[in-house]
C-alpha cells in the first residue's frame, strides 16, 4: 500500500515538474525531442517513458511557450527542434521564482 502511494506520488511529481525542466533545458539552445529525453535523464535521473514528453511539448507549444522548426539531416530523417519563445522565458522565470520560494521556505 505504502509502495503504491509513493510510486503514484513520484509519477505525479514528475508530471508536475517536467514542463519546468524542459523549459529550463531549452535556455539558449534548440533541442529535439530525443535529445531532451537524454538531457532529462542525465540532469535529473528521472526514468520516464519516452513517449510522455510529446504531450508535454505539445501543451507547451499550444501555450505559446515554445516554438519549433524542422531541420533536414544528412541521414534523410529530419529533426524537430524546439526553442523557447519570449513568453516561454518569462514563464520559466516565474516558475523558477515559485520553485525557489518553496525550496527556501519549506525545509524537509
Amino acid at each position, binding site marked *: 500500500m505504502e509502495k503504491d502511494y509513493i510510486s503514484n506520488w513520484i509519477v505525479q511529481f514528475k508530471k508536475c515538474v517536467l514542463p519546468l525542466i524542459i523549459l529550463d533545458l531549452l535556455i539558449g539552445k534548440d533541442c529535439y525531442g530525443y*535529445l531532451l529525453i537524454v538531457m532529462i535523464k542525465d540532469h535529473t535521473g528521472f526514468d520516464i517513458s519516452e*513517449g*510522455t514528453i*510529446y504531450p508535454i511539448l505539445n501543451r507547451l507549444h*499550444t501555450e505559446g511557450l515554445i516554438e519549433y522548426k524542422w531541420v533536414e539531416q544528412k541521414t534523410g530523417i529530419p*529533426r524537430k527542434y524546439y526553442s523557447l519563445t519570449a513568453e516561454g522565458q518569462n514563464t520559466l522565470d516565474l516558475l523558477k521564482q515559485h520553485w525557489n520560494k518553496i525550496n527556501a521556505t519549506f525545509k524537509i
Partner: protein
Amino acid sequence: MNKSNFTSEQSYINYASYIEKVKRIISVLPDEDALELMKELDSHIFESLHADTSIIISEEERIKTVLDKLGSPESYLAPLIAEKRLTHAIKKYNLVEILKAIFGIFKTGGQYFLLSILYLFTLGFGIVIIAKIFYPQKTGFFVEEGQIIGLGFFSKINAQATDLLGYWIIPLMIILIIIFYLITTYLLRKIVLRKRK
C-alpha cells in the same frame, strides 16, 4: 523510415507494426496534425536507434528496446490526441468535431465522473430505505391506474396510487446497494490499477 533503414527483416516488421498502431490511433486527427506527429515519432525512433551503438546488441533487440522505452502509443498519445482534436475543433467552430473531441476526453477523464454517478445511485438507494422508515406512506414503488409513477420518496402522492412493494422495498434497496457498490468499486479498482501500470 523504410525497409532500407533496417538490416534485419524482423526489425523492420517490429518497427512497422508499432507505426501501424500509431497510425490507427492518430487517424482521428486532421491529416496535417497526424502527419506531423508521425514524422516526429519516426524521427525519435531513428535517433534512439542510432544513439548508442557502442553497446553490441542485435538490431532486433535494439528496436525492441527503443520501442519499449518509447512506451505504449495508446497511453502517451491519448492526452495529446484529445488536446489536438479539441484545439482543431474549436478553431473551426465545428460543433460535431467539438462534441467528438469532448467525448474523447470524457472517455478518459470522465470515467471517474460516471463512477461517481453510480456511487450516488448507491447512496440514493440508502436514502429510500431511511425515507421508508420515517415516511412509509410516501415512499415506495407507486402505480396509479396502470401507470408507473415512480420509485422513491414523493412529498405529494395521490390517494389512488398504490405502493406495489410496501416494506419489501427495503430488502430490494439493500440488494441494489450491494450490487451497485460491488460493481462500481470493481470498475474503480480496474481503472486505478490500469493507470498505475
